[in-house]
């Protein structure tokens, strides 16, 4: 760039340079996007008659929350809830235990390239397959029930936790780890002293968050036959028992909020 004389610059005003320098391209892209957005909304058909009828059904559903029925199906709700909790706890523990070595392997700054590629591959597969799809497949293999749900959640936990753990390891302070290596530590000791203390708070926080997600997911997985409270909820909807469904939803919301509160406390403790 040519040298700019100060005198030319003074009094000329200043604007932040545009992200896209070419004005034709900039306005073209904006106009194109707006046009697409309008066209996209036009393609969504709304049947107002159907909406009017549905409003009534929706209102019934909302009214059910004012008189949730915990009692008439209590034994179904209770066994569904227990199944979900068992699934959540078991899948979280297994998933977290498997995620730790894979997370170590998926961190470029501590793993050799072949290990890194394999672990990143596992993470990519786990993240590419949505829980529902995995659950449908596993229900087909193992049949209805919580085993399929447990395996689905374990699998999903690995993708989530390994990836985020690996990213935290990649962002760690290199010098702290270097100091441990300089003392003549073995690889395992180096991980235990130089790496683990740096990533522990995040690992605990993410694990708590994942337990929370796993519980919520367990309610969804029931819809495709993978056991848990979701199965009970699905049955209630099928029978148009909105008051029982409302009771189940209230329980799920309560448990998720309690888990959220608990994980907040634990995360504050481990900082």
């Amino acid at each position: 760039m040519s040298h700019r004389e100060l005198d030319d610059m003074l009094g000329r005003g200043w604007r932040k340079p545009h992200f896209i320098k070419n004005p034709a391209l900039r306005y073209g892209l904006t106009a194109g996007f707006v046009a697409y957005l309008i066209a996209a909304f036009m393609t969504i058909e709304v049947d107002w008659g159907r909406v009017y009828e549905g409003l009534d059904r929706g209102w019934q559903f909302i009214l059910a929350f004012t008189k949730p029925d915990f009692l008439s199906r209590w034994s179904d709700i209770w066994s569904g809830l227990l199944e979900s909790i068992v699934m959540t706890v078991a899948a979280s523990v297994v998933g977290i235990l498997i995620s730790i070595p894979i997370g170590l392997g998926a961190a470029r700054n501590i793993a050799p390239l072949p290990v890194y590629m394999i672990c990143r591959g596992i993470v990519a597969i786990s993240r590419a397959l949505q829980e529902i799809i995995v659950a449908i497949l596993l229900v087909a293999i193992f049949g209805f029930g919580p085993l399929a749900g447990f395996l689905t959640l374990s699998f999903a936990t690995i993708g989530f936790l390994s990836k985020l753990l690996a990213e935290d390891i990649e962002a760690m302070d290199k010098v702290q780890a270097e100091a441990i290596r300089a003392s003549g530590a073995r690889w395992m000791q180096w991980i235990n002293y130089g790496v683990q203390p740096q990533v522990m708070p995040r690992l605990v926080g993410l694990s708590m968050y994942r337990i929370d997600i796993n519980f919520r997911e367990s309610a969804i997985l029931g819809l495709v036959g993978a056991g848990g409270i979701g199965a009970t909820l699905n049955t209630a909807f099928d029978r148009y028992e909105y008051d029982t469904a409302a009771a189940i939803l209230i329980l799920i919301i309560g448990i998720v909020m309690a888990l959220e509160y608990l994980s907040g406390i634990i995360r504050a403790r481990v900082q």
Partner: protein
Amino acid sequence: MLRLQELTKTYKTGDQALKDIDLDVPKGQVLALIGPSGAGKSTMIRCINRLVEPTAGAVMLDDTDLTRLGSGALRRARREMGMIFQEYALVERLTVMENVLSGRLGYVGFWRSFLRRYPQSDVDEAFRLLDRVGLLHMADKRADELSGGQRQRVGICRALIQNPKLLLVDEPTASLDPKTSRQIMRLITELCRERGLAAIINIHDVALAQMFVPRIVGLRFGEIVFDGPPTALTSEKLTEIYGEEDWEATIEKVEDEDEDIEAAE
């Protein structure tokens, strides 16, 4: 005891950080390595314990060439070399005691270190060292609760508990105030004398180096351009190491400080 022979480090980018360095450090000698940023000071001490792999040349510690060691032998050799870091490099979420004991990792097995069950002799030595640097009461504090000077003292304990022959010290005072800097330099040189340790101390502060260290090596663009006692470090020599600048103030300040310290003692 330590001899660098034609030590060369070329980074992947093509930068030559060290060019055929030859340096001999006898047993128990403390030397300061000075030079401008980017002269290769940090690379040099990291090539000695191979936190950075040298490209060519040899690092002889007694009769072993460290550059040829396999990973197991390198680990055992690293036990002989304690390292003290710029910005302390303590593991911040571990306690002071765990940080000090981590200096013994090269000597204890994995499970002992994992369960923090160190041999009694190591624990006693850790307490002795913490007492020596005045931090015995801090043993169970987390490292990130300490001040800069305190952290560097813990760093010193961690290096010494390795029972090394040699200390590699990288900018020990870079983030400390002037008074703490002197205290830390005094502590390092005293401990080296007490234990007969050799040390290579990278340091930016020329005056501080002249004050505490009997031998100064000046590095410029990866080459040794000065090697001698502090008194031989004239303003011409400083110009050769760092480039043109008015050095009289630096040198005068040193003399004043020497008098101050003598008066205080």
